[in-house]
Structure formats: structure tokens, C-alpha cells
């Protein structure tokens, strides 16, 4: 045994100089400022060069890099990427210390720390600002801690002579000897309704103006992404901030299109819906089961004028129909059978081939193509895929769902941005279905087209062509020298012209994130603009111009880009210079928990939730509230059907209950079950399983349905089931309306038509009133 290997080592006895990671973050409304500290110690008897690949959010604007080495503080500077490496390399060659931060992908970074002498401790500090994802009144703080192994297909060429897999994939290990500490301060505590984490157990405490959230354990393994969901008392309203910075001024306009303004009216155009499901090995476990459930619900919700198809992909792909086909009872049946046989057994994550197949197939005239992509996104050849979908941006919108402990956030969001679609990320402790249903709502309802922000004078708006859906908040940045208290935004919804006026107030502060956020967005637009030309005959001059622009922006605002790196050189006196052999230590990164189905059942749905009333509770399944069952009363008879279909109630204590519930069902399970019973033509038929979940008795529903009379013959059971399910959804699940409203559209229409044409009634009471009355009872 090597006795010299004190300090942190891997199971294979390889020393790891990284001893720990700390994260400190401040959240204010939609933005966050984050400081990441990495601590290194060289416990070996030779100098080391450490290389550590780590993830950050894909929209992180990395604006600070400093190093404390042997007591000296060195502030990093932005340099062109190649030059930064040369400086790093030359410094190391001369025995100095040097520290380099490279962007490999917008969400994968590498820190090289060279010539760390024996016994020396080094602290590296990275600062970034970021905009948080929002959904109504919720913001999500997302901190990736794991890089899932990215699949690089064989045909992907090396980049600058280095295999892409070596650029994006770190060394993986089942366990690593370092962990993470985290503290998040959420400011404006009066406006906060709740804080919860679907990914980690957390504890919360009060500060002056803020609430602090931290891991419930001191140090946590870096094996899954951290998600913190903050729900505010009020939803986000459109508002703007203006920051005057020297001779420059920056706007941040948060624009929320009120869903009511559009009334959620469906677009009249015909739609093609193509489901593309990742069946690679990494999707094993609960991911594939929930994705299948979501698919089943959506298949049953499609409308008769839609065409559809399903693709499953891994190393190879297969599809349900050769080409998208009409939605009929028969095609639905085939699709459901196909879905039931899906397994996560198709090998690697080769998405390019199925997407090419889709884009090669002819687009029907007057038909809008939409792709729902469900994947863990562990894809390494992103740029090939972006080139394909961006080049054909008008042909299909992609709505992507990224699932798992460490999905490739950048890929999931970028592919949606490139195609004017939308994206959702699902942590393993969250259900996939609600997110998929939310995206489906965006497909069938309205997007806001031709959004124009009317600036008086501006020199740089990003994004240049914003994409928004009703009810969603988007952010547009502008650079303009003068302040305006109102910014006018125009757009159109289903051909109707709309106008919004957004109030703007002045913002201040040395650490104000707006310029860095603006610069990051501008850099992103330039980088993505470059991608469209990848593979085309772009001249060297144009490429050089783009590169120069990126380098200039990066340097001016201190933001890392793909063309620039942070470099910090620790000049040493001769006596401290490194001489002799330097050992290379690549820091191993933990394999994402649940990757490939490994350990997928560990998520026992325990997380801690903070409520605004100050009480704390450990809650089982924060995403699924429990609906408690009530047993049936004793002495009830079958003769009088009403009394709301013999809903079970608590029995007298001296009687033995006739019905014993073996378990309680979560809201999501009940909603899923209801939606999965939708029929091809619309309407539902309750089965005994759902009746049981709803605490009803199927035989009473059947009996009551036989009493329905109307002008014409009708399917009384479907009619009653439908009225019942829609009423229950309205009454009990208004909070989940985002999920079920669009999906049940055809059933509402079916019921309306049946009532209008057949006037069904029970005992002379119109069906709708009968259901409503009894439900209220």
C-alpha cells in the first residue's frame, strides 16, 4: 500500500487534488448570482497538473475567475482561447503556476490548474450570473453537478486532432472523494409562497430580507443536478429594468403575455405531430415507463384532422408508420400497441438519423409539423443536429423534454430555441407526464408571432427574434443609451395584432447582472449564427470576423465564450518554481445517479418544503399530493342511485368496512388514469380501476347511466363518465389545469355536442345539472 497517498484518493488509490466544491448563490426574482469555489490540495510528493471538467447552466454568464494560491490572489483575464492556452503552457514551462478556464460546450467547462507544488492549497473562485426558468409564479434555480456520459457517434470527426469524446466527457467514477456544499439566499422573502427541491433534501432558515436554503447534510455527493423551485405569491408581470453603465445603457424586459388575452384559442391549422422517443440504454428504469405513459395520454388526445407518427431511437431507430398517417381509430390502436412494446434497449443516443428521416419526409401543404422529443439528451454531436434543424427551422418546431439526473440542458433547450419550440426539464423525482402535457398545450394553442420590441434607439437587441407562448415569460435584452419609462411590444396571435406596454424602472448596483446577461445573450446569438453556416462554404474571412467579434465582446464584458478562456498566471520567485516531473491528475466525476437505469429506484420522493407560514415539514413526494380514500357507509342500498354514485364515506366505528383501500393515489396518478381513458372520438369511459381511485363504485355509475334518457339513442355510460370526469377535473384539479385542459378539448366538444343534440337527462334533470348537483353534495 502506498503510505504516501494521504489526502483524498479514489478507490483505485489514485490521489485527487480536488477536495471540495462550495456554491453560494443569491436569487432575486428571475436572476441569480452564483459563486462556485473549488478547493484543491496537492498531498503528493510531486507537483501536479489537475484537469477538472464540470458543468454549469447553459445560460450561465461566466463573468469572474480568480485563484488564491499559496496565499496569493490572482485575478483571471479573458484571452483568445488559443492564446490563453499558450500563456498557460508557457507559464508552466517556466515553473510558474497557471490556471485556465475553458468553455468546451456552453454547459461544460474545464479548469486546468498547473504546477501545484507539493503541500500547496489552491482555491479557485468562479462567478456567474444567470436568468432562471419561470413558469407562472415559479422560478427554478438549476445547478448541474454531474456530466452524464455523452454519446458520440462513430462518424463525428475529431476536433483539432482531439476526439470529441475526450473534450466533453470527463473521467467517470462510481464514487469520488469530494462533495459539494451549497447555500442559496432567496431575497424578497415577503413575496415568497414556497421553496422546495425536487432533487435534494434541503433545510431553510430566515435571514433579514431573505430565506436561506441549504442541503440538509453538510456535504452532498455531486451525482445529480440540483433544482430549487421558488414559488412567489404573485405571478410575474411584464416589467423592465434599465441600467446606466458609463456611456452605455442596458434594458432587461421581462415580458409575460397574459394567457387570458389570447383566451387559449386553438390554431385552426392542421398539425402533424411526431413523437420521437429516446430508447437508448440510458433511458432505462422509470424514465421510459413515464415517457410511455405520457405518450399514451397524448395519443388519445390527438384530433381527427391531425396526422402523426412515432419514432424510437437508440443506436438505430424504428418508426410506427413509414410516413405520418391520419389519426383514426385503427391507427390509434396500432400506435398504442407499438407504445406498449417500447423498451429502453436500443443502445446509444443517435438522434441525427431519425431527425434526418423526418426532415427528408415530405411536409403536407397547410400542415404544421411538430416534433415532441423525449430524451435524456446525453448527446455529444450537438452541432450536427443543430445544423440539421436550424437549416430547416421552418419545417418543424421541436418541443423537447429532458429527463434524468443530468440531462444535457444546453442541447434540450437549444434544439427548441433553434426551431421556435419550447423545452422542459424533468428531475427524476418529478413526473414526466405534466411537463409533456404542458408542451402539448403549447403545440395546440397559440404562439405569439412577429414579436417586435420598439426601442427609440438601440444598438443590440437579444434575442433578435424572440419566441413566446401565451402565459409564458420571456426576457429580451437591449442596449440603448437613453432611458424610457415605457417600452412598446407588438406581436400577433392567430393573425390578430396585439400591443403591450411594459413599464421600465431604473436599476442600480455595481454587481448588477444586466450587462453580463446582455453580453452572454449576444455571444450566444453570434455563436449560434455561426452554427447555421457550419458545413457551408463560409469564407475564412467571415469566420475570422465572427471570431474577432466574439473575442472583442468577451473581453469587453469579461464573459467566457467558445473562442475565449480565462487565464490566471501565478508568477513565482525562482525558489518556488516547479522543477522536475509534474504528474497529470484528471479529476474523476461521479457517474450521474440513475444513468442507464442504475439505481433508478433510489428516489424515494422525500424532500423538504418550506412554506411561507414559516412551518417546515418533511413531505413525501412534493410533486404528488395525496388524495385520501374514504370508506363506504354501512347499510347503504343499491336502490337510490344518486347520493353521488355511492361515494364511499367513513363507516361507523362498530361496523367492519366493506371496502378497504389498500393505498392512496396521488393527484398525478389519478389525472394520468383519467386522461388515459379518453376515447378516439372524444369522451371517456370510466373503468373499475379509475372508479376505485376516485372512490366511486363502477356498478352505480353503470346503473345511473342506464337511467339516462334523451331525444336520440346515446351511449349513456360514456356520456355520464365524460360529464363526471370533466366535472371532477374542473372541481378538484384546477391547479393542474395546464396539464389536462388542452388534452381534454375533444372530449369537451363531444360532450357539448351530445348535450346539444340529444338533451340527455336523469329523472328529468339535465345531465350536466345532475352531475353538478351531486358533485356539490
Amino acid at each position, binding site marked *: 500500500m502506498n503510505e504516501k497517498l494521504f489526502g483524498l484518493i479514489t478507490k483505485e488509490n489514485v490521489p485527487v487534488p480536488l477536495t471540495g466544491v462550495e456554491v453560494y448563490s443569491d436569487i432575486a426574482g428571475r436572476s441569480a448570482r452564483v459563486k462556485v469555489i473549488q478547493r484543491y490540495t496537492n498531498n503528493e510528493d510531486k507537483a501536479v497538473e489537475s484537469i477538472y471538467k464540470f458543468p454549469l447552466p447553459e445560460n450561465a454568464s461566466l463573468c469572474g475567475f480568480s485563484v488564491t494560491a499559496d496565499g496569493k490572489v490572482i485575478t483571471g483575464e479573458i484571452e483568445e482561447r488559443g492564446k490563453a492556452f499558450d500563456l498557460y*503552457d508557457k507559464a508552466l*514551462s517556466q515553473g510558474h503556476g497557471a490556471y485556465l478556464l475553458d468553455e468546451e460546450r456552453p454547459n461544460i467547462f474545464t479548469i486546468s490548474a498547473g504546477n501545484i507544488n507539493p503541500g500547496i492549497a489552491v482555491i479557485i473562485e468562479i462567478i456567474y450570473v444567470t436568468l432562471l426558468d419561470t413558469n407562472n409564479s415559479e422560478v427554478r434555480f438549476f445547478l448541474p453537478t454531474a456530466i452524464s456520459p455523452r454519446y458520440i457517434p462513430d*462518424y463525428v470527426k475529431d476536433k483539432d*486532432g482531439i*476526439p470529441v469524446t*475526450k473534450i466533453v466527457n470527463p473521467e467517470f467514477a462510481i464514487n469520488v472523494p469530494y462533495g459539494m456544499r451549497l447555500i442559496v439566499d432567496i431575497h424578497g422573502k415577503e413575496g415568497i409562497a414556497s421553496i422546495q427541491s425536487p432533487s435534494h433534501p434541503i433545510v431553510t432558515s430566515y435571514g433579514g430580507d431573505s430565506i436561506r436554503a441549504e442541503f440538509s447534510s453538510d456535504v452532498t455527493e455531486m451525482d445529480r443536478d440540483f433544482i430549487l423551485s421558488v414559488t412567489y405569491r404573485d405571478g410575474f408581470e411584464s416589467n423592465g429594468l434599465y441600467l446606466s453603465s458609463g456611456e452605455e445603457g442596458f434594458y432587461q424586459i421581462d415580458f409575460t403575455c397574459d394567457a387570458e388575452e389570447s383566451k387559449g384559442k386553438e390554431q385552426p391549422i392542421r398539425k402533424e405531430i411526431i413523437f420521437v422517443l429516446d430508447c437508448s440504454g440510458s433511458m432505462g428504469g422509470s424514465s421510459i415507463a413515464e415517457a410511455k405513459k405520457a405518450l399514451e395520454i397524448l395519443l388519445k388526445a390527438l384530433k381527427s384532422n391531425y396526422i402523426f407518427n412515432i419514432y424510437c431511437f437508440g443506436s438505430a431507430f424504428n418508426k410506427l408508420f413509414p410516413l405520418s398517417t391520419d389519426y383514426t381509430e385503427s391507427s390509434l390502436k396500432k400506435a398504442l400497441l407499438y407504445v406498449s412494446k417500447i423498451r429502453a434497449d436500443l443502445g446509444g443516443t443517435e438522434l441525427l438519423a431519425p431527425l434526418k428521416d423526418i426532415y427528408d419526409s415530405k411536409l403536407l401543404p397547410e400542415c404544421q409539423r411538430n416534433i415532441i422529443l423525449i430524451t435524456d439528451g446525453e448527446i455529444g454531436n450537438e452541432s450536427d443536429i443543430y445544423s440539421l434543424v436550424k437549416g430547416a427551422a421552418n419545417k418543424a418546431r421541436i418541443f423537447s423534454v429532458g429527463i434524468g439526473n443530468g440531462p444535457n440542458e444546453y442541447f434540450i433547450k437549444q434544439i427548441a430555441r433553434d426551431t421556435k419550440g419550447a423545452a422542459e426539464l424533468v428531475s427524476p423525482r418529478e413526473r414526466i407526464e405534466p411537463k409533456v402535457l404542458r408542451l402539448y398545450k403549447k403545440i395546440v394553442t397559440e404562439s405569439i408571432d412577429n414579436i417586435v420590441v420598439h426601442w427609440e434607439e438601440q444598438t443590440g437587441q437579444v434575442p433578435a427574434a424572440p419566441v413566446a407562448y401565451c402565459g409564458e415569460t420571456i426576457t429580451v435584452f437591449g442596449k440603448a443609451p437613453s432611458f424610457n419609462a415605457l417600452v412598446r411590444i407588438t406581436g400577433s396571435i392567430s393573425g390578430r395584432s396585439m400591443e403591450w406596454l411594459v413599464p421600465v424602472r431604473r436599476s442600480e448596483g455595481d454587481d448588477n447582472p444586466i450587462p453580463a446577461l446582455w453580453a452572454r445573450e449576444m455571444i450566444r446569438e453570434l455563436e449560434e449564427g455561426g452554427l447555421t453556416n457550419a458545413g457551408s462554404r463560409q469564407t475564412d474571412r467571415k469566420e475570422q470576423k465572427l471570431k474577432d467579434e466574439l473575442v472583442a465582446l468577451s473581453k469587453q464584458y469579461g464573459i467566457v465564450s467558445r473562442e475565449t478562456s480565462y487565464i490566471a498566471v501565478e508568477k513565482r520567485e525562482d525558489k518556488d518554481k*516547479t522543477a522536475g516531473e509534474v504528474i497529470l491528475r484528471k479529476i474523476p466525476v461521479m457517474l450521474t445517479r440513475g444513468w442507464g437505469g442504475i439505481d433508478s429506484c433510489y428516489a424515494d420522493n422525500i424532500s423538504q418544503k418550506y412554506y411561507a407560514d414559516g412551518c417546515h415539514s418533511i413531505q413525501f413526494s412534493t410533486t404528488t399530493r395525496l388524495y385520501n380514500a374514504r370508506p363506504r357507509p354501512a347499510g347503504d342500498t343499491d336502490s337510490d342511485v344518486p347520493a353521488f354514485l355511492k361515494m364511499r364515506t367513513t363507516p361507523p366505528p362498530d361496523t367492519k368496512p366493506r371496502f378497504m383501500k389498500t393505498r392512496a393515489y396521488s393527484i398525478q396518478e389519478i389525472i394520468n388514469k383519467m386522461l388515459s381513458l379518453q376515447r378516439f372520438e372524444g369522451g371517456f369511459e370510466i373503468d373499475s380501476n379509475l372508479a376505485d381511485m376516485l372512490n366511486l363504485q363502477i356498478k352505480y355509475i353503470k346503473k345511473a347511466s342506464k337511467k339516462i334518457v334523451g331525444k336520440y339513442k346515446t351511449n349513456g355510460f360514456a356520456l355520464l363518465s365524460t360529464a363526471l370526469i370533466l366535472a371532477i377535473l374542473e372541481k378538484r384539479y384546477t391547479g393542474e389545469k395546464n396539464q389536462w385542459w388542452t388534452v381534454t378539448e375533444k372530449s369537451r366538444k363531444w360532450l357539448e355536442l351530445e348535450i346539444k343534440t340529444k338533451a340527455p337527462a336523469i329523472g328529468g334533470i339535465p345531465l350536466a345539472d345532475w352531475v353538478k348537483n351531486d358533485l356539490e353534495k
Partner: protein
Amino acid sequence: MCMEDIKYTIDDLCELTGYSRRTIRYYVQEGIIEPPAGRGRGGFYYDSHLNKLFQIKSLQEKGMGLMAIAKYLEGGEVREENYSRDIWIRYEIAPGLEISVRRDIEEAEGKKISEIVRIAKSVMREGKTDE
């Protein structure tokens, strides 16, 4: 004079081979080329290093990836597909229009490819007639 007597700095190697400093350092780290002689990172390189880099470059230009090259340099077998995967055969259908077929597909599906090329050419000819 012995060949090994000529000393190169890493800058020389970059200039002579066209590789970036980053790439050459990576090859040293991964053991694809020998470390420089002398005092660590600042040491010198010889013709043996230079020749190996030229050899790597030549294999890369033939479409080989670094992982396959590393195996090859170690004396291992190189699978044919590693070579062939990026070799494409071009058929000119009309001025400005080509069909490219990867060599392994061309070899396996030669007849079908010929048929595709024939049809494509006839379609282009028809286009001209229509005009």
C-alpha cells in the same frame, strides 16, 4: 550528424506541423507522442517527435480518428471501417449537383447506388427538357 541532434521547441513543432500547442500537449499527455526530452514541459523535441506528428497528420488526413491512430501506432490492428468511414465517392449528376456515397455503402450496395445515380441523372435531364 545524428538525426536526433536537431532540437525543436514546441513552437517549432507547431509551426512545422500546423498543430496547435494545445493539441501537441494533449498528445504528450495521452502518451501518443513521447514527452519532450530534458527538463519537463520546457524540454526539447527531436525528429522522432516530428516524424510521429507528421505520421499522425497523414493518417488523420486519410480520415482516421485519433483513437484508431493510437491503436495503430501501438502496433495494433486497425479496423478497416476506421479508415473507410470518411471516404466518400462522388457522382456528379449535373453541374452543381452531386451525390456522395460513403465507401462502405458503395461497396455493399453498388447496384442500388448505380440505379440511384442513373435515375437522378435522368430526372435532371427531364428538367432540362421541360424548360
